[in-house]
């Protein structure tokens, strides 16, 4: 199969859906003439014109709300945040408008919109540019939240997100845009809300999603050498969460470590842990552990970033602990 970059997979999804449906348009900062801050939308202005690939001023609150209004009136906007750090100045329209509209209008107005862009840390950018709000958005009823980890998933899930009739938050990473992966030429969709077993194993279950899952792969390789077999589950969607796949795996391995880039309090790790202790309590042979970002704003210095972010070493340590090897 051919391999393409993560950014190309996203671009193909956008292009295919825009060719398929006139109502879909892309709006955001630098998406058109500049070809996208991270080149996701390269060439799209040339194909679709400025009616459908639209540059905005730096006015996130305004264009997020314009997107929601357009969706209420029959269009299917894809709104790009240059990064999700900047979605905070727009979050009122995402949470108070997009997520609430159907409920408060008694089902009369739906909001088929996608808000997409990169999330979480991306090198030494300090605290305002390094935040994973994945769990914040996942906390809100009315939204669906997708955080893919490879080009194949990204393409299939973005196409599903654009066709979905509910508001979808779609979170990428600057540190994945260049990643390459196999993506078929023919069209495919991936169902929202389904986890994927990225690696089969027998001794311990690692649950993760998005860019940080790469640290799980590295840890699993390391642990393999020590004779420990890890099963890696990629949630892919964190609202709704595919609890069944996680619980099935835990019933097999009896041990669970959750790896996530968000802060610990109220994280997806917290949520998955709750569900597993409730529905698979008798299957657990060790307390569930998690590896998250440290409970602090992410500073600039590399020494502090190493100490703060999840990495393979920390995961190996957590796995050894749930195996009582530590």
């Amino acid at each position, binding site marked *: 199969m051919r391999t393409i970059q993560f950014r190309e997979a996203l671009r193909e999804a956008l292009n295919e859906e825009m060719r398929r449906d006139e109502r879909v348009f892309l709006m955001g*900062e630098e998406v058109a003439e500049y070809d996208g801050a991270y080149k996701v939308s390269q060439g799209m202005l040339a194909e679709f014109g400025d009616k459908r690939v639209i540059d905005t*001023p730096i006015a996130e609150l*305004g264009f997020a709300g314009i997107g929601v209004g357009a969706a209420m009136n029959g269009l299917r906007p894809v709104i790009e945040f240059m990064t999700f*750090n900047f979605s905070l100045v727009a979050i009122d329209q995402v949470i108070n408008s997009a997520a609430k509209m159907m409920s408060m209008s008694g089902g009369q107005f739906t909001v088929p919109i996608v808000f997409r862009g990169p999330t979480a840390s991306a090198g030494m950018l*300090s*605290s*305002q540019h390094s935040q994973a709000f994945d769990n914040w958005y996942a906390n809100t009823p009315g939204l669906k939240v997708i955080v893919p980890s490879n080009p194949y998933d990204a393409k299939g899930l973005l196409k599903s997100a654009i066709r979905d009739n509910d508001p979808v938050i779609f979170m990428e990473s600057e540190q994945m845009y260049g990643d390459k992966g196999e993506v078929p030429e023919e069209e495919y969709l991936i169902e929202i809300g389904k986890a994927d077993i990225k690696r089969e194993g027998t001794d311990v279950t690692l649950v993760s999603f998005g860019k940080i899952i790469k640290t799980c792969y590295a840890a699993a390789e390391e642990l393999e050498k020590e004779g420990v077999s890890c099963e890696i589950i990629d949630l892919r969607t964190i609202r709704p969460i595919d609890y069944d796949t996680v619980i099935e795996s835990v019933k097999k391995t009896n041990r669970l470590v959750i790896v996530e880039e968000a802060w610990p309090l109220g994280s997806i790790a917290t949520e998955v842990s709750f569900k597993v202790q409730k529905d698979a309590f008798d299957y657990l042979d060790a307390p569930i552990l998690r590896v998250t970002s440290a409970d602090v704003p992410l*500073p600039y*210095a*590399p020494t502090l970033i190493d100490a703060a972010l999840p990495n393979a070493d920390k995961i190996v340590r957590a796995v050894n602990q749930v195996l009582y090897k530590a």
Partner: protein
Amino acid sequence: MAKPKFKKEQYLKWYEDMLLWRRFEEKAGQLYIQQKIRGFCHLYIGQEAVIAGAMSVIRDNDNMITAYRDHVQPIAKGVSPNAVMAELFAKETGCSKGKGGSMHMFSAEHKFFGGHGIVGGQIPLGAGIAFADKYNGNDNVTLCYMGDGAVRQGALHEAFNMAMLWKLPVVFIIENNNYAMGTSVERTTNVLELYKIGLSYEMPSKAVDGMNVEAVHDATEWAVNRARNGEGPSLLEVKTYRYKGHSMSDPGKYRTKEEVEAYKKLDPIEQVLSTLKANKWITAKEIEAIDDKIKDIVDESVQFAEDSPYPDASELFRDVYVQDDYPYILD
């Protein structure tokens, strides 16, 4: 030639300051390419007169706040170039202890309220800093800087309205370098004269030639005096230009070489130098001596940054809460 408006010493100070800032930023750009400086790195080259023309007006006690293009302002306010360079290197001796980096220089001591990374975030903060001074009954003034792109944030409008309503001692300064990343002003608005944004709040507002330090000085003086005298905020649209890309990773395809070259002909440092030369206020020898002095300062800052250690990992749980036994979640 018209008689210069200011004294020789003033021009010399402007010249030395702006040249130091320029050389410091040029060095930062080189060090970024060598990956000694990481993250994003936004250089101030071309815009020096905006700060120089303000520094000749304000007092030490006056406050300054800006966005992420913030290496020069702390130096202007008195922070040592060593501490700024060390911050760029992510070292513990940096002015934000290596925790902020290029976009987040701070110095409470020098009343530099920081570099802020979310576009427009500093606009209400600037009004709030001024609010505190008014509340405390002192006559300090706050200079609050923002880019032409930042004026498109809703927060500006809310802050402008309240700043006017409450006559806060703040000067809002738009550094209009005509681009927000790759987007020119005319692609984002019908109101091309950005100073007019202030007029809808009846805020006294002016456009200023930002390549000319004397013009910046005069306009800043007018606005600072208004603020200090309790007359409330003003808005300056300072028309300037950044010679370099938005950040170090910007290919700059959205503007022509000719445009950049045309602005370089208006270079603020060259303008001051030609005044100094025309009045025979500076000799070739003195120019050389200034160059040497500045080179030493910049080189020393690099050496200092190189020699300084990174913050220890134990620093991770410091400076997040004032409460020193705050119970962080550690698992």
